[in-house]
Every structure is written in structure tokens, then in C-alpha cells.
């Protein structure tokens, strides 16, 4: 049997994006020994790609803003399926977490008065997003990383956790392999924080990187933790659509926040058609009012391009389906039109949206200061994930915590732009604090040899099989990459933006079929830095989360937020009262339950009423 190296820590954090880094910093500050384990190099996690900003009611730009309005906006955006306690904590604590970043060296764009500047974003009543041009995520991850490395955190780069280890009902460690040499490692810990992000690689068109294979969701699920609201997958309305190789790459909502408008092939600004009831009072009457809003007129309402992402994505799909789309199956996003309004529009666009300018110029040959972009929806974010306690972020497995995208609750049925970066730092901090507390109170638990041996056996299996696929992975479509492509293709078609019972049932059959094929998949080559082996190991997680999305989606027979059912196109009051919970049964099946949402506190109800 292969050997492994053993590491001892109070708290092990898996994932080094914003949430993982913030959790590690907090646990370390509380006196714990901390390991930070990440799949890529430090500073490359998905947070680095976040563009628009971090939502926090600092009220630097509009002094009417406060945590109550942010709370109400978040709940409305999530169609009231959110964990209201998380939405409350998030709105209250985000400003402090942002100010803390500044104290750690972050340099946000400034207002004229020299304070942190804030921009408009979809679903936020006031300009609320602290930002750095359109590279806010880079600023945030670099600040946390540079602060964190001086806090005594031990960082394990390019390590992949493939199994959580348990002692009875609680978690006791994690099994990982290191990419460079392919060696095995056991992280023995009193508490574990999952901060592994999302599931976008289950889809063909996605803004997500190779890392987003649902690792944390699958690890937690296999360890007995409940998953929640997995049907809610956010399709960001604006991804690049042309050329084909860049399809899915994100185009920040900041383009619309700066005045960008959506048009179909006839030049019609279709977002003014069919504004949802919930937002009628808050939407501009015409183009002129919309422009006044994005240029800071406090009396004006937001343009319809800044409605929530689920709505905008569906409106775009509608245009494409009715033949009114752009040449490559999207619609036009035009920021160049502001030349009519601003004498220095070109400089303004390049200053406010530098990486968008760069991205379109270099990858698509489009100058966004002069021409419209072609955009269409792209799989972007998982609102669902590991079911956690709102205050502590602990999952249903003692000692196992989750924060950021991997956790469910804050965003309900749809996430507002900007609420992800704030989610990371608010709940990263909380997860770190409570994991440290758990470690202090309970200490570490036992590791069991049989589980470790099973983890090693599973990890080595693809390398030891050579019969399932030809060595180079081309034979018969049986290689790890080919299986991943098949999954991505049908998840996109059958469990995408518009869903039906029939198609999701088909998807479940195909998932079962792929699972049968995946157990025979072979990885060619050695254990050293072998992406084929890695892809083979990722398949299990992708299949778990794909099944979770399809099963939850089948159970929710209504359309709400990001979950749109063509066979049940309306909202159903009966479904507004529960979350969808998934648990693993003893025989390995996936069980769907409906859990009633806890009644909201009276004071919070009042805030929502006041903000209607």
C-alpha cells in the first residue's frame, strides 16, 4: 500500500479564494494552527476573476443606504428563499469586512471626497459596490493573500482533497494528493472549513475555470452533510459568445452599471419589455431616466438592464429563441453609445472597464469604446451548496464548516451581483472564527486506517486501470476528458436556463450511465503532475453535483429566481415556503426532502415591508 505524509493542524481550510483565505486568517488570529490547502497556486483561485465589486452598505456615495436596505434587496433578489439570518448578518457585517481590507492594504477606487467609491449594480437600490475598476476580485484576493502569508498560515499549493475522514459522526481529517509528485497526504484536524467554490464545470458554457468541479459539495455530501437548494444555478446574462473558443468568458455587469444597454438585432432595447411586478416601482420609465440613474441622479430609478440576473438572462434567451438575436446567438451589449453623452467617453470606458476593453480587444478584435459587444448567458454561480448554520457556518456534520460559494443560504433563488465577494469575507470570517472555537472546545478526533486505505485505493484506481480506455484517452470516447465533455454537453441542454420534467429526467438517466462508465475510466501516465489523472478523479464530484441539480430541479415544480421550468412557468406560493434538501441514504442513493423555511423575525419582516 502506498505511503502518505501526515500533517497536524487545529483547522484545515480547503480552498484559497476569498472565503478560504479569510477563514484561514481568522482561525489563525484566534490562535489556531492552520493549513490552507488549494488546488492551484496561491492567488489564482476563482475570486481573482471577480470583476464588478463587493457589495457593502458603506453609504459613501448615497447616504440613504444602510444595512436594512441591503438586507431587503438581498431577500428580494433571492425570492425570499434565502436564509434570512445569513442575509441579515451579511448586510450588517459587510461594511466592516470591506473597511478591514483597506486596513490590510487594498486600494479601492475613490470618491471625490477621498472615500471608497461605490457603483451601481443589478438589484441593489443604491450604488453599493466598492470596486477597483473591473478587477475587484484581484484586489481582494491579493490583499488577503499578502496579509495572510504573514499570519503563520501553512499553505499547501496544488494539493487536491479527494475525501473527508470521519470519526463517528464528526469530521477528523482530509485525504489529499499533491500534484507535483502525486504523493498522498493526510491532514489531521479538529475542524475543517470547505471553501472550494462552485460547480460551473458541469456545464459546457461557463465562466468558471477547471477548478470548479463541485469538490466541496461532493466531499460534504459523501461525508453525510446535507446539500441545499442545488436547483438554483445562476446563468450570468453576459458572457462572451464569439469567437467560439472564448464562449462563456464573463463580461462584467459593471458594463451595465456604467450605462451599457442591451439591444437585439433590430436595435430594440428589449429590456424595457415585461418588467417584473416585484421591481416595477424601482425601474426607470425610459432611457433618459435610466441614464440619469447611472450618472448618479438620486431621484431616478435604475434602467431595466440592472434588473436581477435571472430575469436578464431569460430575456436574452427569449430574444435569441425568437430569432431576434445577434449573428452568433447572443444579443448586443453597447457601452459605446455613451459617446453621445460624454465628451471623454473613450477615456471613461477604458478607466472604468479596463479589463473588458483589453479582453474584447485581444480575444475578439472588438473595440468596446466604438462597437457593441455580443453577449449571451453563461453558467456562473451556484446559489445552492452545503447546508450550514447561519451564524457559525457549520454543516450538518460536526466540525465541518463551509463558506462562500460552496455554502448555501445567503442568496436564495438568485444572487445579486456584488453579494458574492461580500459573502466570502463575511462568512469566511465567521467560518474561521467558529471553526477555531470548535477546535478549542472539542480537540481533534481519531483517524481510521480503513478509510485512509479506501481513499488511497480510490485515488489510484484510474492509474491502475488501463483497459477501460485506450492509453491516450481517444479510444471509444472513454477517456476522462471525453466523459467530462459528454456531461457538460447534456447538462447544458437538459438542465440549463430553461428546464422541463422530461429533460431533467433524461439527464438523470444519462448521469447514471456516465457513472457506470466513469468507474472504468483509465488515466494514462505517471502520478507526477498528471492532468488526465486529475480529470478522472474530478468526474465523481461532477456527477454528484450534476445529479443534485437535476434532482432538486425536478422536485421544484415552479419557476423562481434562477430556476425556470417551461412546464411550470409561474411562481407557486406552496413552493415559497421550503428549501430543497439533499441527503445521501445508507444505500448510496440521493434523497430529496423539502424543509420548511423558519419563520422570519418580526423586525426583519418589518424591514422588508418598509423597503417594498
Amino acid at each position, binding site marked *: 500500500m502506498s505511503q502518505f505524509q501526515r500533517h497536524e493542524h487545529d483547522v484545515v481550510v480547503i480552498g484559497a479564494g476569498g472565503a478560504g483565505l479569510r477563514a484561514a486568517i481568522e482561525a489563525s488570529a484566534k490562535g489556531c494552527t492552520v493549513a490552507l490547502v488549494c488546488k492551484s497556486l496561491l492567488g489564482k483561485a476563482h475570486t481573482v476573476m471577480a470583476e464588478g465589486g463587493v457589495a457593502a452598505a458603506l453609504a459613501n456615495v448615497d447616504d440613504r443606504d444602510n444595512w436594512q436596505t441591503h438586507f431587503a434587496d438581498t431577500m428580494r433578489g433571492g425570492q425570499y428563499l434565502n436564509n434570512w439570518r445569513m442575509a441579515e448578518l451579511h448586510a450588517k457585517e459587510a461594511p466592516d469586512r470591506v473597511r478591514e481590507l483597506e486596513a490590510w492594504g487594498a486600494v479601492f477606487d475613490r470618491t471625490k471626497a477621498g472615500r471608497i467609491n461605490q457603483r451601481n449594480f443589478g438589484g441593489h437600490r443604491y450604488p453599493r459596490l466598492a470596486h*477597483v475598476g473591473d478587477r475587484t476580485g484581484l484586489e481582494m484576493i491579493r490583499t488577503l493573500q499578502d496579509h495572510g502569508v504573514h499570519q503563520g498560515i501553512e499553505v499547501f499549493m496544488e494539493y487536491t482533497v479527494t475525501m473527508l475522514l470521519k470519526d463517528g459522526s464528526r469530521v477528523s481529517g482530509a485525504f489529499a494528493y499533491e500534484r507535483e509528485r502525486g504523493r498522498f497526504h493526510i491532514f489531521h484536524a479538529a475542524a475543517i472549513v470547505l471553501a472550494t467554490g462552485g460547480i460551473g464545470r458541469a456545464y459546457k458554457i461557463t465562466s468558471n475555470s477547471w477548478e470548479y468541479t463541485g469538490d466541496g459539495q461532493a466531499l460534504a455530501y459523501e461525508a453525510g452533510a446535507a446539500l441545499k437548494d442545488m436547483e438554483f444555478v445562476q446563468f450570468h446574462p453576459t458572457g462572451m459568445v464569439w469567437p467560439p473558443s*472564448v464562449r462563456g468568458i464573463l463580461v462584467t455587469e459593471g458594463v451595465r452599471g456604467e450605462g451599457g444597454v442591451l439591444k437585439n438585432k433590430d436595435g430594440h432595447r428589449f429590456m424595457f419589455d415585461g418588467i417584473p411586478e416585484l421591481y416595477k416601482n424601482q425601474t426607470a420609465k425610459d432611457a433618459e431616466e435610466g441614464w440619469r440613474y447611472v450618472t448618479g441622479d438620486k431621484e431616478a430609478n435604475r434602467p431595466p438592464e440592472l434588473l436581477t440576473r435571472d430575469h436578464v438572462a431569460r430575456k436574452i434567451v427569449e430574444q435569441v429563441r425568437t430569432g431576434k438575436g445577434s449573428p452568433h446567438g447572443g444579443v448586443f451589449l453597447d457601452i459605446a453609445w455613451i459617446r453621445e453623452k460624454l465628451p471623454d467617453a473613450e477615456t471613461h470606458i477604458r478607466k472604468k472597464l479596463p479589463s473588458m476593453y483589453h479582453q474584447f480587444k485581444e480575444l475578439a478584435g472588438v473595440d468596446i469604446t466604438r462597437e457593441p459587444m455580443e453577449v449571451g448567458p453563461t453558467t456562473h454561480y451556484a446559489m445552492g451548496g452545503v447546508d450550514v448554520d447561519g451564524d457559525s457556518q457549520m454543516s450538518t456534520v460536526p466540525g465541518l464548516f463551509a463558506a462562500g460559494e460552496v455554502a448555501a443560504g445567503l442568496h436564495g433563488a438568485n444572487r445579486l451581483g456584488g453579494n458574492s465577494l461580500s459573502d466570502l469575507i463575511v462568512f469566511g470570517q465567521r467560518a474561521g472564527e467558529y471553526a477555531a472555537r470548535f477546535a478549542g472546545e472539542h480537540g481533534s478526533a481519531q483517524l481510521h486506517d480503513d478509510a485512509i486505505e479506501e481513499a488511497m485505493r480510490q485515488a489510484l484506481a484510474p492509474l491502475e486501470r488501463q483497459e477501460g480506455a485506450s492509453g491516450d484517452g481517444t479510444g471509444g470516447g472513454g477517456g476522462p476528458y471525453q466523459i467530462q465533455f459528454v456531461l457538460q454537453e447534456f447538462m447544458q441542454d437538459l438542465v440549463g436556463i430553461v428546464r422541463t420534467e422530461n429533460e431533467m429526467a433524461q439527464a438523470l438517466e444519462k448521469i447514471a450511465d456516465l457513472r457506470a462508465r466513469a468507474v472504468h475510466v483509465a488515466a494514462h501516465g505517471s502520478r*507526477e503532475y498528471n492532468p488526465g489523472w486529475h480529470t478522472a478523479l474530478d468526474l465523481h464530484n461532477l456527477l454528484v453535483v450534476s445529479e443534485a441539480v437535476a434532482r432538486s430541479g425536478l422536485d421544484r415544480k415552479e419557476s423562481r429566481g434562477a430556476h425556470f421550468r417551461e412546464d411550470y412557468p409561474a411562481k407557486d406560493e406552496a413552493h415559497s415556503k421550503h428549501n430543497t434538501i439533499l441527503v445521501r441514504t445508507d444505500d448510496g442513493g440521493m434523497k430529496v426532502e423539502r424543509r420548511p423555511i423558519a419563520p422570519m423575525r418580526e423586525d426583519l419582516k418589518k424591514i422588508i415591508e418598509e423597503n417594498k
Partner: protein
Amino acid sequence: MATRTFRIWRGDRDGGEFREYSTDITEGMVVLDAVHQIQAESANDLACRWNCKAGKCGSCSAEVNGNPRLMCMTRMDAVAEGPVTIEPMKAFPIIRDLTTDVSWNFRVKKGIRPFRPRKPDHADGTWTMAQEDVDRIQEFRKCIECFLCQDVCHVLRDHTKHDEFIGPRYFVYNAALEMHPLDTEDRLEDLKKSQGIGYCNITKCCTKVCPEHITITDNAIIPLKERVVDEFYDPLKRLFRIFRPSPRGSAPSGPR
């Protein structure tokens, strides 16, 4: 669609060779797409790093026909006709194929004195800073840590001064801290003594390869060099230093 030939370096720390692959190229493809296609079709275990595929994470650095580039931002239609040669960065030890051991960079960064802000201006723990005063460090903070500047710098690439010289990336990092309006730390002695800023002879190779178009030499390195000169070679300041004890603790050890 056209088929193109690639010569990709395959091997590990013990040596390797270029191997030929060919794959179909469609409109708009970048070099990284071609590498992925080859990986999926005929070389499952071909090692390369990547994350965002949009020039934001700085993972897929390599040398394409001898030019240090992000593979994700190098369009195939901009690569000269004929076989395309892809090899790993030269300034760092090979791990396997296109991946190199860049851990030295992370150790160097840890040795740089961290941000130390002055007392907050306001009761809520915040500060007032004008946009004009942060414009120049915001340029430095665009760095995506692709390490292409380190790769191309002859002090590291040809003279392997990794023990005495921190490279362009970390001069930019130092500059972002030194010119931060709130920072109170002093890094000039470290820059002079343990970080080897004197080795840079301003060939501007780093500036040329920066995918974020940071004017590394003119805006970061030269002003730092000037500060070092002012601090250590100005005769009046030298005299003054004799009568003044060092305000800091001892400098941290060199980059390793």
C-alpha cells in the same frame, strides 16, 4: 479550419525533448485552446497550468516561439506560420512539461516587509485618499503574478541570481507598498542590501512582456532606484545617518 503543428516540450527535472502534435485550429482560438485540445485528444497527461482563460489569473505562462506569453491571450492567428514551439519558462526549475516550480516567488514575497498603515483618519477605521494619489499604485496592483517579467529578466534567467535579486515582480510589489499613501514602513535598506535592486540595469525586458502593460521599469524600478540613491548616497543624508540610530529592526534575510 486548418491543421497546425506544435512542438511541445515534454519532460521533467531529469530532462526531456520536444514532441510534435497537430490539431485543428478554428476561428479565434488561442494557444491555450490548442494545448487543451491536444491534451484531450492525444496527450492526456500533458502538464500545463491554467485557470481563468481570460488573462486575469496569470497561470498559463510559457514561451511560445521563444516569446514569454500568457497562452490564453495569444491568438493562433497572431502566431507566425509554421510549427508552433511551446516550452516552459526558463527562469524556474522544471516540474513537468509546461509547468515550472515557481515557489521561489512566493518565498521572496514573504520576505518583503508587509503593509503598515498610519493611524486611521476616521473613527470607523478608514482613511481619506484622493484618487490622484492612488492612481500610480493601482497600476502596480494590476499585476496578476504570471512571473513572465521574472522569466525574461536576464539577472534571473541568465545569471541565476535568485539568492541576491528579487526580480521585477517584487520591485513592482515594493513600489506599490512604498508609494502607498498610508504606508509607514521603510524598505529602502532591504532593496539595496538583500533584494539587489542595483543588479537591474534597466533593459526594460520586463516591461515589454508584461501582459498587464505595467510600465515596470519607468514607473516602479527607476523611482525605487532614485529613492535608494537619495537615501544612501546623498552626502548630507550619509552624514546625518551617522548620528541617527536605524529606525528599524535588522533587515530580513535575502530572498531565499
